[in-house]
């Protein structure tokens, strides 16, 4: 215990009373009030906040759903429909939850794209990136478990296909699969444990998100130019400058997700999942959630089952070591003339993998999946280290405030003659 601790003084005596016992007020002031953000951060930097909002929304709507859901193979399907029909605003909770999962992945994918393109994973934010990939992994597990719960045809067969992957592991595979399922086949025991795990994992995610945020606050956020904050003039305070930007982003996101929730709530769902699970009838197409399709495409691109499983998991595990594969000191791809295009190619390739992952693995689709698989791993193992070695990056700006004032002038000041530039306007206001 530190007897010489300097206690922050506030005007409000209640705050002082709390602060003296638990310095939470000064913590929030430091981390969310005066916390410096690079002032050139664009709306890509709002997706972390959007992801947090979505996570909380998913947890809250999920708790309400769990109050009315029955995890039993005979009743699960009907209980979900009962929520939609007889529970007050149950349809709203369920459509928020099912579409929220898809939007959660869209947001997190954009968040990852941003981190990759602008080099946010590099020194000194490697651990932050690792925690992020870990969150992504937990999210995939959670969404897979949740997809099983409505106990429709796709729930049942998706669970069957994915749990079967474990049986590919030599020697212990079959035993491991049985242990995971609690039965020899996907059944009531499986549904019960999947429900229990689906309920608890979001709270684990929440905890890791806390670490993820704490870690980014140590060295501060990266920015589109990938250069560090040097002076106070390079940054703005989180409150109110970034908070208001995040709020604008939240409203735009609200419009987008509401359009789907209220006017096309089943657009992103598989129709087969409105058919109750039937172990005797295999659906024509077994497809995963579309947001997991790129990894499913990788799985199916490999003729060997064990190889496919290893590569699918490898595709995620490889992300953990990305900070050490990329040896370039320049963070932002805006200043990396060669790597930038390979990076864009990686995003397009990932999208293409997702597209063929939803289609039958045959003919041209299979070929695209295989080429995509090669590029996916080639990007990490060959392109990333090699380009970092041969590429000559363009000249980095001296400071964030430099690049910010250059960016902003043509946007606002470049109008008709006679209108003062924003800098002059500001002077007259003062």
């Amino acid at each position, binding site marked *: 215990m530190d007897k010489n601790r300097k206690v922050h003084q506030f005007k409000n005596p209640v705050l002082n009373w709390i602060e003296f016992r638990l310095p939470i007020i000064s913590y929030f002031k430091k981390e969310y009030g005066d916390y410096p953000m690079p002032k050139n951060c664009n709306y890509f930097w709002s997706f972390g906040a959007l992801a947090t909002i979505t996570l909380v929304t998913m947890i809250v709507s999920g708790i309400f759903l769990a109050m009315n859901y029955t995890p039993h193979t005979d009743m699960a399907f009907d209980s979900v*429909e009962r929520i939609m*029909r007889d529970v007050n605003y149950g349809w709203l909770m369920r459509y928020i939850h099912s579409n929220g999962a898809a939007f959660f992945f869209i947001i997190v994918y954009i968040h990852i794209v941003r981190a990759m393109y602008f080099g946010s994973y590099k020194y000194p934010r490697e651990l932050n990136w690792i925690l992020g990939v870990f969150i992504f992994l937990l999210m995939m597990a959670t969404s897979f478990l949740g997809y099983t719960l409505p106990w429709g045809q796709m729930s049942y067969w998706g669970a069957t296909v994915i749990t079967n992957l474990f049986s590919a592991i030599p020697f212990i595979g079959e035993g491991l699969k049985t242990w995971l399922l609690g039965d020899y086949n996907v059944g009531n025991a499986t549904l019960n444990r999947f429900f229990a795990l689906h309920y608890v994992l979001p709270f684990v995610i929440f905890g890791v998100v806390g670490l993820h945020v704490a870690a980014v606050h140590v060295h501060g956020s990266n920015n589109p130019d990938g250069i560090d904050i040097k002076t106070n003039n390079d940054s703005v305070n989180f409150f109110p400058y970034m908070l208001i930007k995040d709020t604008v982003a939240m409203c735009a996101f609200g419009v987008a997700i*509401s359009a789907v929730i209220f006017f096309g709530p089943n657009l992103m769902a598989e*129709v087969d999942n409105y058919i109750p699970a039937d172990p005797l009838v295999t659906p024509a197409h*077994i497809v995963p959630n579309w947001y997991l399709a790129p990894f499913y495409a990788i799985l199916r691109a490999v003729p060997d089952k064990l190889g*496919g499983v290893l590569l699918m998991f490898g595709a995620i595990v490889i992300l953990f070591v990305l900070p050490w594969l990329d040896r370039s000191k320049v963070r932002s791809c805006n200043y990396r003339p060669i790597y930038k295009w390979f990076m864009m190619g990686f995003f397009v390739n990932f999208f293409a993998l997702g597209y063929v992952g939803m289609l039958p*693995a045959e003919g041209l689709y299979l070929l695209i999946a295989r080429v995509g698989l090669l590029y996916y791993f080639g990007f990490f193992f060959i392109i990333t280290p090699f380009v970092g070695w041969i590429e000559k990056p363009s000249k980095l700006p001296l400071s964030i405030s430099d690049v910010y004032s250059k960016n902003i002038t043509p946007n606002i000041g470049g109008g008709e003659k006679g209108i003062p530039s*924003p*800098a002059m306007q500001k002077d007259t206001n003062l």
Partner: protein
Amino acid sequence: MRLLLIIFLLFSSNLFAAEMSTEKMPKHDWSFKGVTGTFDRAAIQRGYKVYREVCAGCHSMKLLYYRDLIDVGFSEAQVKVIASEYTVLDGPNDDGEMFERPARPADRFVNPYANDNEARANNNGAYPPDLSVITKARKYGVDYIYNLLLGYVEPPKGMEVGNGMWYNKWMAGNQIAMPAPIADGSVDYDDGTDNNAEQLSADVTHFLHWAAEPEMEERKNLGIKVILFFIILGTIVYLAKNRLWRDVT
């Protein structure tokens, strides 16, 4: 091995899909389409009559209650009468015996068969699917159901239709166990609406879509308000943001 089998299934089913996709699913003009689309209560009531007189002989609607019909414009008294025409098994009573009684509005739609096995036994081994959420459970939804009901045409030359099967140009694989359920005049309407096959099919599909998404009108209504809220709040916040950031140079 099972994975290979599944890949094979994916492969083979795509062949069917390629075969079928020669003709595009025609789109019917539904009153509930679009952002402000609403259900046509009269069409749902007529559609319920079609369901009751034609479909209900084989197809259950386990998720619906008779009381739900109040939402489509039947009065409580009418719903009581409708329900009382069915018999449900209740009990056990104080003597420990099961007994039959007329259905009440709080009962679920009575199943035409005692169990799935009886349903199969009575239908050549084919199970008539439950229709509660059928328009959500098929690709193209309402348009698929509507066209399927009218899709019984002569099979193309050289095609063998299996025993007890019928040719339908919209069914996956083109063979369906259900004989053509609807023809011109199969059901008499009380309100004088023309009862040709197209009208009957459209009405029963309208009814089925209401059954699958009874919350649709409330949902769209709330959706407009929520989106307006986000647009208005977003605009205000955006203007405030511009004002705030003007001083950041």
